[in-house]
């Protein structure tokens, strides 16, 4: 693939510079230790602590804190990463995230005997048949049956439960009927249990991330008689599960205690007897508990302490990659041209896209990740995040963008910044008046940057503001409380807003289908509002065997079409190429301005070995040992 080697070099140089920039006054020795701690490890790797293996006996008990109390531990209802981590210990689905013999994280069959190949039907649908392993038991001793899966999937997908993650089932045949106009409520997914051991499920088409979905909490089995009362998942007595652990005690907002199940089918592999998930919503409190030795693992650290912690805990502080992008989104309906401009229609839209893309070049992403945010984030120049794979298993983001000489849609290396600045100024000069003596633009409309109240978001906003003000572009900052902010942004009541997105599964489509016209996440307002019929988008995918060739069409005629094609495409290579084209189209609008790829920062005590996390950031302690 193009650019691969180069991007590896770039990435490693970024990491080195990052480690070097973090602490400017430290000695060489300290620097070396800081480097180890700040090097970003891609999630999905085992996290072996060398020291932990050396001595001591496994105490069999681990105290961890991921976050505050999850809103629900019902696997179908949960929508948080921390909740998913707890649920992953309590339930086992057809698949799971486990470690291979080399300690690398991989998907493995769990309740299913093996991963089976799908059988393609004449109409393009794909049917999978799974056999359940022997000896699967619920925590109350009853057998786990195929029917439990069928029930659970229909429950999680259906409108009656109204779960946030119901759309995770939209790959299965029958899902659309559940939500069609005039649906009666008794529509079912195309999943059947011909006998207690067999599950037959039919997907709309070949889905590359299907096995991954099988390990997602929403796909865990639940038993009809258990979940009949909605409060089942709030009390250890009624919480009947089928995973490696049961809840032995739950003090709400304080601690959830898990005890290993001896009748679990793979109990022999489970090294941790008790996991105590402490619940706290204060980062400083988490740190205090870690520092005084009460907790061996904390999933969050106070932002303003990161520099100190890197020095103080070089081996305990870990930074892993995460499938997410921090970005700035523009409101597509906000006018950017000066009052004197006579451009209208398509010309105006294209000019504005060019302006937005130019302003994206003015942002110093390296400064933001090294000196502002400091969590080892990777400067981003594409929307689909680092960590998502391409057709050939390489990184999708490395293959994105028009120019093979850099990764992504613009060069975000430190060396590229100056050239970017020059390019941006040249572009902006086409549309705005430039005062050569002051080296500033004089008639750029005033921008307002909206963010939710948070120190980190504020600091990033200020960094962007400072860059723009050098050129005379005024940007005022406005912050709103979280829930208010979400509504304002969703309604399109902003000009520029902070935004972020984390993938639900390792497939670029989870970053792309959110921008179709009708999507609830279309904060940019593509194809909506004042510029609803704006004809400014071009798409040509005839070379890929499709008959779509649009010159200056609407968003619905271009982007919505390509996303639909991606969803229906059964050829993996073509599908990934379509996704690159979709991202090209998205980025050409300039409405998405990526800042960095998220990282997952946490602290783990040196005594812990055998801990790992999945690419989505679920934390696993069942194979861990605490050697004290």
């Amino acid at each position, binding site marked *: 693939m193009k650019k691969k080697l180069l991007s590896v070099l770039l990435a490693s140089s970024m990491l080195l510079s990052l480690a070097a920039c973090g602490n400017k006054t430290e000695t060489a020795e300290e620097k070396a230790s800081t480097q180890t701690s700040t090097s970003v490890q891609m999630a999905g790797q085992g996290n072996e602590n060398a020291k932990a293996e050396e001595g001591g006996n496994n105490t069999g008990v681990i105290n961890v804190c991921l976050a*505050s*109390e999850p*809103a*629900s531990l*019902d696997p179908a*209802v949960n*929508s948080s990463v921390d909740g998913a981590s707890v649920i992953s210990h309590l339930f086992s689905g057809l698949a799971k995230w486990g470690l291979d013999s080399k300690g690398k994280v991989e998907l493995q069959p769990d309740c299913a005997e093996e991963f089976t190949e799908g059988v393609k039907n004449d109409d393009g649908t794909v049917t999978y048949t799974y056999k359940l392993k022997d000896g699967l038991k619920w925590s109350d001793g009853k057998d786990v049956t195929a029917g439990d899966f069928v029930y659970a999937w229909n429950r999680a997908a259906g*409108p*009656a439960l*109204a*779960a*946030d993650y*119901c*759309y995770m089932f939209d790959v299965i045949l029958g899902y659309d009927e559940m*939500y069609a106009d005039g649906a009666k409520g008794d529509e079912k997914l195309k999943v059947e249990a011909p006998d207690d051991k067999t599950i037959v499920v039919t997907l709309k088409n070949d889905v590359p991330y299907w096995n991954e979905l099988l390990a997602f909490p929403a796909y865990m089995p639940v038993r009809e008689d258990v979940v009949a009362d*909605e*409060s*089942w*998942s*709030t009390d250890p007595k009624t919480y009947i599960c089928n995973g490696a652990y049961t809840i032995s005690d739950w*003090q*709400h*907002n*304080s*601690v959830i205690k898990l005890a290993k199940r001896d009748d679990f089918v793979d109990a022999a592999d489970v090294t941790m007897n008790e996991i105590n998930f*402490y*619940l*706290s*919503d*204060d980062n*400083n*409190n988490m*740190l*205090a*508990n870690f*520092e*005084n*030795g*009460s907790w061996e693992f904390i999933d969050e650290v106070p932002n303003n302490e990161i520099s100190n912690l890197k020095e103080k805990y070089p081996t305990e502080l870990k930074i892993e990659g995460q499938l997410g992008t921090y970005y700035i989104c523009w409101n597509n309906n906000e006018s950017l041209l000066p009052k004197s401009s006579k451009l209208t229609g398509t010309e105006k839209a294209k000019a504005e896209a060019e302006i937005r893309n130019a302003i994206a070049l003015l942002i110093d992403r390296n400064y933001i990740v090294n000196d502002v945010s400091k969590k080892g984030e990777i400067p981003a120049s594409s929307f689909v995040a680092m960590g998502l794979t391409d057709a050939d298993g390489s990184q999708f983001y490395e293959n994105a963008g028009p120019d093979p000489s850099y990764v992504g849609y613009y060069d975000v290396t430190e060396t590229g910044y100056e050239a970017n600045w020059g390019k941006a100024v040249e572009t902006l000069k086409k549309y705005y008046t430039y005062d050569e003596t002051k080296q500033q633009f004089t008639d750029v409309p005033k921008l307002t940057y909206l963010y939710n109240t948070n120190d980190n978001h504020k600091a990033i906003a200020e960094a962007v503001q400072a860059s723009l003000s050098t050129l005379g572009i005024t940007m005022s900052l406005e912050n709103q*409380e*979280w*829930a*208010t*902010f*979400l*509504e*304002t942004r*969703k309604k399109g009541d902003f000009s520029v807003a902070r935004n*972020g997105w984390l993938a639900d599964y390792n497939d670029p489509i989870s970053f792309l289908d959110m921008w179709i016209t009708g*999507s*609830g*996440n279309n904060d940019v307002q593509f194809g909506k509002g004042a510029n609803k019929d704006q004809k400014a988008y071009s798409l040509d995918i005839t070379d890929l065997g499709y008959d779509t060739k649009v010159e200056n069409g609407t968003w619905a005629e271009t982007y919505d079409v390509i996303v639909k094609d991606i969803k229906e495409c059964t050829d993996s290579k073509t599908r990934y190429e379509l996704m690159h084209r979709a991202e090209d189209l998205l980025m050409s609008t300039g409405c998405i301005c990526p800042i960095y790829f998220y990282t997952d920062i946490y602290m783990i005590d040196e005594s812990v070995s055998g801990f790992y996390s999945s690419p989505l950031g679920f934390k696993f302690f069942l194979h861990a040992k605490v050697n004290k």
Partner: protein
Amino acid sequence: MNTKTLMYILKRILLAVVTVWVVITVTFFVMHAVPGGPFVGEKAVTEAVMKAMEAKYGLDKPLSAQYLTYLKDITKFDFGPSLKQRGRTVNNIIFDGMKTSVKLGVLAALIALAFGVVFGAIAALRRNKLVDRIIMIITTAFVSMPSFIMGTLLLLVFSSKLGIFPANGAEKNGLVLPVITLSLYPMAYITRLTRSSMLEVLGQDYIRTAKAKGVSGVKIIFGHALKNSLIPVITYFGPMLAYIVTGSLVVEQIFAVPGIGRAFVNSITGRDYPLVMGTTIVLATLIVIMNLVGDVMYKIVDPRITLD
């Protein structure tokens, strides 16, 4: 207690009920007027899901209808289901939180009272001596230091560095630091109140008379002076409780205490309407009742006061 006092108490109770009703009404409408909703998240849920959820919790009905239903429900002490923590009722969450918060609040109030009165008395008796100076300096510091700074400081020293007390409120001895944090301000305030009021009382004629008659110092203090100098302290009872209730919002957060304060704060940020209402009503009722008790006690301690 004469009929006049009884009438007064009845009137105050009636007024308290009206106060709580006003709080309910204002909170209900303001809460719904604030942008954002319980089912809005970073990732948008589909329209169908949103509609289903709103129908399930009756949020699709007109606001006035929701208000009337709510009033009807709370007369039966049914605060409804939580919108965020699915499967849990607000009653259940409040009950859980109150168990811890009441313990925290009562302990803090008792410590503040006990130490405040003693230190105040000592300071008054040793007026302008070294002990008095030290007590005054310390209390001035405590009165002016906000609880979130004090809490963080205690957490840092006694938990992070020394490891004497746990940083987690749910553990054994976990309430020690939160109780201290919460009691310091009212304790300092009571010390200063007691001191100044005691000084005033000690200058009164009847104390001088007692002294002239040769009554022992201890008896003067505990038999005559203390009771009268406590009147201002009793008036402080209501405000102190209000402070402890609001202070616990911060302190519970710092020490991860699973109390009602945290539930209250989280319910607002999450727009968990029934939980916002439930916690507001409980906290408002508590403050109203405590103010009432304070006023009545005031009357009992000082019969000269006429109630109206």
